[in-house]
């Protein structure tokens, strides 16, 4: 068995035979021509044929993935007719006396370059659309219609990369999964795979096509991004089990996607998702979460061998905000400590790491690290709907210091004419008993609270959550914890702030009704729990 790793863009699994995707790729050469009029005529004929094909693909997509997703092919048809695009092709043919294929390929590169150089991840991905239509026109000039290679078996398609039109053109009935060596999770191919409910893994790298051949058996896990070539029995059994639970979940999905999080008596609550990396955004969208209630920024620090730069952080935050397209994204500032070690921070070993030098305590002691993160966050705020959240707060004076640093960062940005959003919400975690007890003092200073129930439980009950022996003493439903949450909710609302829960307790459906009665405004859970929780909310009646 051989294991390859990529990025899962749609969480689902499949097992089956591999089929390596063959593209009739016309090699484009620059050829000198005398009769440029004939070349212009060939471009027109090819464009006409390409438009007809696209219109057929559009119809197919309309049926399979819905109007919103099919529209990209309507846009492809319009792109083919784009004046500047056509003028460019025409002038290259006429001025350089070259063949039509070459003129289209050069024009394609130029326009793709324009999109690639834009500072927006979404627009950068549009370069693929330009290349897709151009390759189609070039293929139409080669005068050989595409043909299926006839097999009736369902297969796992492996390719270097797939263009959106290639993705939709594939016979969905015959495709078990997509695996590509390259590609971006923002691409239409990834979006289409999600909407076609086909497991898809991208970015496996060049070794994909080197190590596989037609007919190889493979198992694909779109959750983890793993591809197993020639899987052993244990792996196959695991994949089959996931397949079964997927089926059950799919039923739930179908009936709950797009529905409101509303109780029988009409109380609404936001259900957001907790994630720890940019790669999880796909799962957030597939599970229909209303936003991101907790984005752990630690990954940026854990993945690096040195402090991540402002620019590095800015790019990551911006990408999350742009991908969520205006939905709320709450990013929590650095939360590491002796239990989550990062070498370059050179933290001392501690007897009691949970009660030690961690999170906001590190940030306030080393404002240089903190300010770099805040600058990156505020800069990114211009690209979406951001909330910044601070962990491990225990006192008013800590929060005062934090807010002063935020003001400092904003003033610096303003001075350098760097954009940020004034609407950026500021919030704190309620995860120490101290914060809950003085929540009346903290609430007027912030826009929101988010209760971190894991730490709140361990600190309130004096139970180390890493110690399995303490499990029976660690009652997460303990009245003390629920009272602290209720108290925080009252104080938040009395001061015009909203309150969410982002700890594990948020996903505990036996407590959902209790939380709603406290007036909790938002529950943030891992993406796969979003719909289950929605189901629970929709069956609660608070008027009884």
């Amino acid at each position, binding site marked *: 068995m051989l294991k390859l790793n990529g990025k899962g863009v749609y969480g689902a699994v499949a097992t089956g035979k591999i089929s390596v995707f063959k593209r009739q790729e016309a090699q484009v050469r620059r050829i000198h021509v005398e009769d440029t009029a004939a070349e212009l005529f060939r471009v027109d004929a090819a464009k006409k044929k390409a438009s007809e094909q696209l219109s057929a693909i559009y119809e197919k997509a309309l049926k399979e993935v819905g109007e*919103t997703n099919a*529209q*990209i092919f*309507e*846009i492809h048809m*319009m*792109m083919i007719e*784009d*004046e*500047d*695009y056509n003028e460019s092709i025409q002038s290259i043919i006429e001025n350089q006396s070259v063949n039509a294929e070459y003129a289209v390929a050069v024009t394609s590169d130029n*326009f793709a370059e*324009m*999109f690639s150089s*834009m*500072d*927006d991840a*979404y*627009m950068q991905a*549009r370069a693929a*659309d*330009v290349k897709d239509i151009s390759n189609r026109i070039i293929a139409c000039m080669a005068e050989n219609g595409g043909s299926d290679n006839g097999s009736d078996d369902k297969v796992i398609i492996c390719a270097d990369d797939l263009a959106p039109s290639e993705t939709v053109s594939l016979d969905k009935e015959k495709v078990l999964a997509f695996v590509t060596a390259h590609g971006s999770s923002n691409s239409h191919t990834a979006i289409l795979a999600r909407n076609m409910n086909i497991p898809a893994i991208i970015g496996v790298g060049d070794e994909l096509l080197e190590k596989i051949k037609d007919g190889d058996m493979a198992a694909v896990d779109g959750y983890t991004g793993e591809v197993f070539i020639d899987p052993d029995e244990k792996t196959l059994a695991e994949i089959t089990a996931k397949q079964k639970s997927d089926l059950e979940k799919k039923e739930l999905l179908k009936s709950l996607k797009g529905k409101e999080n509303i109780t029988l008596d009409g109380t609404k609550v936001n259900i957001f998702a907790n994630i720890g990396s940019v790669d999880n955004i796909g799962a957030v969208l597939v599970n229909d979460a209303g936003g991101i209630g907790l984005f752990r920024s630690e990954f940026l620090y854990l993945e690096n061998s040195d402090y991540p730069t402002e620019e590095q952080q800015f790019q990551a935050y911006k990408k999350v905000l742009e991908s969520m*397209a*205006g*939905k709320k994204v709450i990013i929590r500032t650095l939360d590491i400590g002796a239990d989550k070690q990062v070498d370059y921070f050179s933290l001392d070993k501690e007897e009691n790491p949970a009660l030690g030098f961690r999170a906001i305590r590190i940030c306030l002691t080393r404002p240089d690290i903190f300010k770099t993160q805040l600058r990156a966050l505020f800069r990114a705020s*211009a*690209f979406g*709907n951001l909330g910044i959240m601070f962990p491990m707060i225990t006192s008013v004076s800590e929060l005062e210091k934090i807010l002063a640093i935020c003001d400092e960062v904003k003033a610096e940005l303003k001075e350098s004419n760097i954009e940020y959003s004034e609407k950026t919400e500021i919030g704190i975690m309620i995860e120490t008993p101290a914060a809950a007890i003085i929540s009346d003092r903290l609430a007027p200073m912030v826009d929101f609270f988010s209760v971190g129930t894991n730490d709140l439980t361990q600190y309130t009950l004096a139970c180390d959550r890493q110690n399995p022996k303490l499990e029976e003493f660690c009652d997460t439903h303990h009245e003390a914890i629920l009272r602290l949450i209720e108290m925080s909710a009252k104080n938040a609302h009395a001061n015009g702030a909203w309150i969410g829960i982002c700890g594990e307790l948020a996903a505990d459906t036996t407590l959902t009704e209790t939380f709603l009665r406290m007036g909790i405004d938002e529950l943030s859970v891992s993406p796969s729990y979003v719909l289950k929780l929605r189901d629970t909310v929709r069956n609660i009646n608070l008027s009884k």
Partner: protein
Amino acid sequence: MKTFNYTIRDEVGIHARPAGMLAKEAKGFKSEILIEKNGKSVNATKLMMLMGLGVKCGDTVTVTVNGEDEDAAAKAMEEFFTANL
């Protein structure tokens, strides 16, 4: 000549889909319709250039309509922006 300013409220700005719809709408008129952002101006019928402007939520664009059916075109444009962007 007719002109108006519009601040984009749509969360994603003038992305592929709205750009496609806008270009389609603009082609229905004889007047020249220009969309300007930060001093850069493009013809509304040119889809790729329109996308290339990179108009985002919160950006203000200036729409200028010039030609024989400019009254109708400007009105249609204002309606289009209000309804879609």
